């Protein structure tokens, strides 16, 4: 686990000084994070990283979990899908299971924070314990087009909070409480984003039998229709008519996700007969993902829908030119023609890839701009700063606050 000083060479001393100043303003306040799991999933990953750093900065930060059985988590998984806009049948029985488990947690979870920071829908009902302290609901999900039945059910809880936090402007809702925009971030010192020695990169390429003889185009994503891996192959084939190159499609798929396995089979079928297409079903291995991204000439993220799409930030942080769909949080990370290229279609993606392969200087400039854009806006240090500002904002109503 990195210490706060280790970020100084990446972001500069003054950025860390600002974090210390903010932490000073939060002296005496206890921040209590609550979510449903300590391992696995994006929320646990963020908290595992942020809680120790906030503590090191001097902010009294603690982390508690709610309890829930198999049935409860099956229901909250349905909620999650429904909030993403997928069609899910949610029965009265599902709502009852949610309410019963929530009630047990309300009775058992000890609330002691001056600021209680609730992550995602699973612990949302704890708001019933609200006293004179401040409560924030952090929504990590894309709720731009939610299933209305579930949103209305959850909204009754949400409006009792002091504030809600969303990851992109399009995710916000009409609510009578304050809503803040806090984008997620990447950790520049993590295995996925730290600088790797060339030998490590080479050994990963050798392991997966990928020669470095021509430009490499890569999309790192799980095999899911929403990530459009078939569209990426189509785009690659259009490029390949003019420019010799390789394509890597790498990612995981859950064993219990039959749809994902179907997609993988279709992808393999479509790639058949082209030895320059490398389909890699990767285990969770951050170093390997890092090596593949670093070895790539161009990173692609041709999603049809996307939450925030942090693989874009990962690619940009490695100063790679990125071609990505204009969906979800991607346009926040890429300013078209300045820090990458945005596209809407297979043809658009193919055109952008060709343009970059034929103009290496332009591609290099986009990559460099992209890296600086990520440094300023999407690194963990910015996320820490936003969280501390959020905590402070709960005590002020003005637009301009003198600390």
């Amino acid at each position: 686990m990195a210490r706060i000083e280790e970020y100084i060479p990446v972001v500069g001393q003054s950025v860390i000084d600002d974090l210390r100043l903010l932490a000073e303003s939060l002296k005496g306040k206890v921040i209590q994070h609550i979510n449903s799991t300590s391992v696995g999933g994006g929320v646990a990953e963020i908290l595992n990283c942020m809680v120790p750093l906030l503590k090191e900065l001097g902010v009294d930060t603690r982390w508690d979990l709610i309890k829930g059985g198999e049935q409860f988590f099956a229901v909250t998984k349905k909620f999650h899908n429904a909030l993403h806009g997928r069609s899910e049948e949610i029965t009265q029985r599902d709502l009852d299971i949610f309410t019963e488990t929530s009630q047990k947690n309300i009775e058992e979870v000890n609330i002691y924070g001056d600021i209680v920071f609730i992550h995602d829908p699973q612990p949302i009902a704890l708001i019933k314990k609200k006293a004179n302290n401040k409560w924030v609901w952090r929504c990590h999900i894309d709720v731009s087009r939610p299933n209305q039945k579930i949103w209305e059910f959850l909204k009754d809880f949400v409006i009792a909070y002091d504030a809600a936090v969303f990851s992109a402007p399009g995710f916000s809702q009409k609510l009578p409480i304050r809503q803040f925009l806090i984008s997620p971030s990447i950790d520049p010192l993590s295995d996925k984003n730290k600088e790797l020695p060339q030998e490590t990169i080479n050994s990963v390429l050798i392991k997966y039998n990928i020669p470095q003889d021509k430009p490499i185009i890569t999309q790192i994503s799980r095999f899911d229709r929403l990530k459009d891996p078939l569209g990426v192959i189509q785009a690659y084939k259009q490029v390949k008519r003019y420019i010799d190159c390789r394509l890597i499609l790498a990612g995981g798929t859950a064993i219990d996700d039959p749809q994902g396995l179907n997609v993988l089979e279709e992808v393999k079928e479509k790639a058949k007969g082209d030895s320059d297409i490398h389909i890699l079903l990767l285990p969770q291995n951050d170093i390997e993902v890092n090596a593949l991204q670093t070895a790539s000439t161009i990173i692609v993220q041709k999603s049809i829908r996307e939450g925030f799409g942090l693989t874009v930030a990962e690619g940009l942080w490695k100063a790679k030119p990125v071609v990505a769909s204009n969906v979800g949080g991607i346009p926040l990370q890429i300013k078209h023609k300045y820090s990458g290229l945005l596209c809407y279609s297979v043809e658009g993606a193919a055109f952008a890839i060709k343009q970059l392969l034929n103009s290496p200087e332009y591609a290099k400039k986009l990559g460099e701009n992209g890296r600086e854009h990520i440094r300023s806006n999407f690194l963990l240090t910015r996320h820490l700063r936003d969280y501390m500002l959020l905590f402070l904002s709960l005590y002020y109503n003005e637009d301009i606050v003198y600390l």
Partner: protein
Amino acid sequence: MPELIEAKEPFRFYTRLHLSELTGLRASNINQLLDLIKQVPGSSIYHHTHRFLQQHQYLSPEPPNDFAYWTSEVLGEDELGERLASIDTIQFPTIRSLREAIIKTIEDFLKNDPMAKLKFAREGAEFHFIRSISFILPTNYVAHNLGEFVDILRKITIDSIYFHIFEARLRLEKGNNDFSYWIESSIGNKRLADEIARLDPYTRTLENLRKTLIKIIERKISI
């Protein structure tokens, strides 16, 4: 090097950190945009005319306002986009007057091109109104003369330079940037103060602005 004049009052550098607050208001066409520009709080006009400066601080200068970007890139109204982009923000002493200029630019355009009202943003590309909440904190950096001042300028955050140049002048309605004010009133160098005040910071990146300030002040110190 000539001896440096000690300031009557030292200059304390402040920093400004901001948090974005979502308003839940969104526009899909130019009419809705115009109506909401009239209604939203000043902190939202401020956000959309200054966000680019902070978020794209290392890139080439860009239109320093989201309204210009959205009307050209999303609605395809390049002419209106250009007119909005070329609003000379530095000429406006208050957010109020800046807001009026934006409204007038859009209204004038719509008078000549009423068909523009029919253009809608595609789903997902609506204009979302956001407001900036500013937190202003004193840093530990204090300058007693121009030598110390320029040394600090090299290492202070971009946020601090931003605060003293942009926020102090427009949002806090001080009428001038803090650097020029201090250089004139505490160092007594009006020429240098004016030279800094004459810079158009909206057509530079913040890093370029930092370099330019350092260059101008260093030149004066070495005379």
